[in-house]
């Protein structure tokens, strides 16, 4: 499997650490309430189709990236630096 790092280009997936849903970018305020925090930490969609997720290029440039991947075809249609991703 190949992952397109916005910094390094197409690289083998072994260079990356996989985190999970890109929901983790949207950290609630401390006082957002139990529901918001529960959703942030524990509730995940399981889409058939496109999903957004976070990968860390741990063996490469060290960038956290937001990857758009199709869970059916495995096609990765895009990747952006997490620090520049829309939240």
């Amino acid at each position: 499997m190949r992952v397109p790092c916005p910094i390094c280009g197409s690289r083998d997936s072994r260079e990356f650490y996989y985190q999970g849903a890109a929901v983790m970018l949207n950290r609630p305020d401390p006082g957002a309430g139990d529901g918001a925090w529960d959703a942030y930490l524990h509730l995940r969609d399981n889409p058939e189709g496109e999903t957004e997720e976070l990968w860390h290029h741990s063996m490469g440039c060290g960038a956290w990236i937001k990857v758009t991947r199709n869970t059916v075809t495995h096609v990765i249609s895009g990747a952006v630096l997490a620090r520049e991703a829309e939240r």
Partner: protein
Amino acid sequence: MRIDGLGLVDRNRPVAFSFDGKPRRGYAGDTVASALLAEGVRLFGRSFKYHRPRGVLTAGSEEPSALVTVSRPGPAENTKRAGAKAAGGAWTANTRATVQEIHDGLAVSSQNCWPSPSFDLLAVNDFLHPFLGAGFYYKTFMWPGSFWEKVYEPAIRRAAGLGRLPKVDDDTPREKAWAHCDLLVIGAGPAGLMAALTGARAGARVILADETPLPGGRLLSESLEVGGLPGADWAARTSSELRNLGVRIMTRTTVTGVYDGGVFGAHERVGEHLSDRPAHLPDDCFWRIVARRAVLCAGAHERLVAFPGNDRPGVMQASAVRTYLRRYGVSPGRRVVVFGNNDDAHRTARDLAAAGVEVAGFAESREGVDIPGDFPVWKGARVVATRGRLGLRSVTVRHASGTEEVPCDCLAVSGGWNPAVHLTCHMNGKPVWNESVHAFVPDPDAVPGMEAAGAALGQFSTRGALKSGAFRARRALEAMDFKVPSEAVPEAEDDGTRIAPLWFVQAGGRAWLDLQNDVTVKDVRQAAAENLQSVEHMKRWTTQGMATDQGKVSNVAALAVLADATGRPIPETGTTTFRPPYTPVPIGTLGAGGRGEGFAPLRLTTSHAWSLSRGAPMIEAGLWLRPSYFPAEGESHWRESCDREVGYVRNTVGVADVSTLGKIDVQGPDAGAFLDFVYTGMFSTLREGRVKYGLMLREDGHVMDDGTAARLGAARYLITTTTAAAGQVMTHLDFVAQCLKPGMRVRFASATEQWAQFAVAGPKAGDLIGDLIGEPPALDFMGWRPVSPGGVEGRLFRISFSGEEGYEIAVPARFGASLWAALAERAESLGGGPYGMEALNVLRIEKGFPTHAELHGRATAFDLGFGGMMSGGKDFVGRTMAAREGLVDPDRERLVGLKPVDDSGRITAGAHLFGEGERAARENDQGHVTSACHSPTLGCDIGLGFLERGPERRGERVRLVDHLRGVDTVCEVTSPVFFDADGGRMRG
């Protein structure tokens, strides 16, 4: 028998090998199958289930039947260990005789037969076949239930299985590697050669992989011309042109799998065919090929027709007969009958006759087809039976004018061709039925970036393959923006596919489909009758296609039988799923390079050599090696060494290498604010020159790691992590900086490798440091300052993991070995010395300092008694969730110390805690022990653990039980700090 004047083997290079211990001869270029067929051997082994005699069916990697065990020449010691079955070194079972090339000294033996392939005791299974049909093991061994483990399974395991494992360590040299290209061409037949040529002439980086030793594919087996040259000559000329153009031709390389994003797995046989192998030469190599585009030119497999007795040695693919004849110069029989349903089979009769081999007759299933040749032709014919116990003696042909038995020793069969669609299915693609060629062809969209060409696409004529290879390559190249010069495709045979479907023959007797798993037409019909009508159910009920060949020559015929039995058309019946690998790959090859020290990197500290010179046993801490203890003369047990080393620290001075702890240099105007956000405590207010203990939480409120942070400057901190969590913390900090706080002006990098850092601890630590740096240490507890031992810029920290007056001194790693030797020498001269991990552990347990035994991922700051360190006035990672009711419940299991009531009582890590006098059972469990040691300071065992309402129960007694080690001790619950509770010694 050999046919003079034919074949690409080197008749000037005879090769001596053995089969079942008997010396055999062949020529360089022969496979085991071709050499043995030349010697008249037809019986290669026995089948998996019924132990039916088995011979050679094919001439390629699709072979289901002729599986043998081969052993490579090796040291005599291996032979002894491996046992008597195969001579030589450790052996490889289930090797296809049609793929393995012979070399001098190669020892080949037959499988699944005892005592010999011609007299095999388990052949009795064949007489039991009425009881062993489809799904028999689901039905037969059901009762009584207790018999399964003790009786049925062991018996079945002994009887079943293909070949035998050597049961010795596999020390075969193997390899893994990567390759990269623009265009990967899979298969070097006419389509593949043309595709590669198109790519090379366009200037692309091309890899051409073929599983045989010689490019050419079927051109090497047929009496066909390409561009006016004999096919084999055209193939040789084209390959040499490809090499000149810089194409990387990987022979003996099977592309075994297609993976996401243009990654292909390939298995190369590197040294398996050689008798003299240089040291370090891998037997084989597993390649990961990264290709921007690929063209699949994998060709096609000729299928059998299922008729009674079609598994007898001597029954063979018609195309394989031609391959043996033309590629190897071997006729598999002296008197051959051909049976086919398509024009392609006619070539076999023609080529045999031209080579002077007797063609005993041609059974053509169709009516009204002309077959020129000087042999009997039966039209509308079917082979309905065969004879010959260990090899074919005759076939019975039924035709319009009657039935006759025809003596022969070889029957060449063609049921048509199946495109090798396998690789197009590896990413969930489903092949589609093509009525005009009566075969499944690839779904064009099955694999992004890969297209099939040639016979793999159902283009069965030579000219069709050449054109298709050029066309598909051009499309791939243009998609990559290469300028593709126009290419003339050479002239060649362009016959259409003429075939009338014939899958099975209606006649009495067992007609075989899967020759490796012994599946018959009747089995498939029975599956359908038992309502296992889905193709996937039929496959599992009958095991059709589930053997190592994945049913390459039999699956489609089995589908046709199922379609017939269920009254559905073939396309509606569908295919089963082909999965990687296309051909078997040894597990050892997939794991190549991972044995011994190849498994993981070894990280060595600068004091490593010194520790070894003192005889210290080294233990793993993450990837690091650290000294356990330093044995002194006269000590016979590690505990003696450990107790002595603990004494150094408590009474004089001990030194230890702590370089393995993670160190991260954090810089930038927002460094303080960043640390405030990742630690529970406040660090932005920490004064320069000071150090502070820090606790890092996960966002879910549990503890991730702990360590210290030293403020090096206005905008610079040095933080430490535990040895084991250094990588995790670095990833976490990257996450926080990039994902949660992207606006912060903070940057950091690991400083672990830059510094060698040593702990100096004990009442005389200050003296030692003073002597080392030439001035008093002059540091308060939790302070740091720059020092320059020997003129080298270093750092001195006043911190303690032992509870004594403690320092850690750091210098650039190049001076580590030298400083360590100086520290150890000075410590010894003061009556102390170095201490290892065992003593370090005892010292910290005595002080109740947690490590990852306690920070086990389920502990909260509250559990550890660190609730007070949760700074109230700021947000930090984990703060909100750590405040959840359940995480601050006083009833939680919380950190305590444990001390036996009787000083001789034992405490072991992993033991569980129960109320005193209660039964040691799960429902009474109140906690467990995470760390334990013998404390020489207290003179008894002590432990740290988590106990329900722990801190409220100090002074209570609990029962500690370790079922595994047989420990049952009454303990007193204490503070986790066993020694110097007010920390006076540490603060000095």
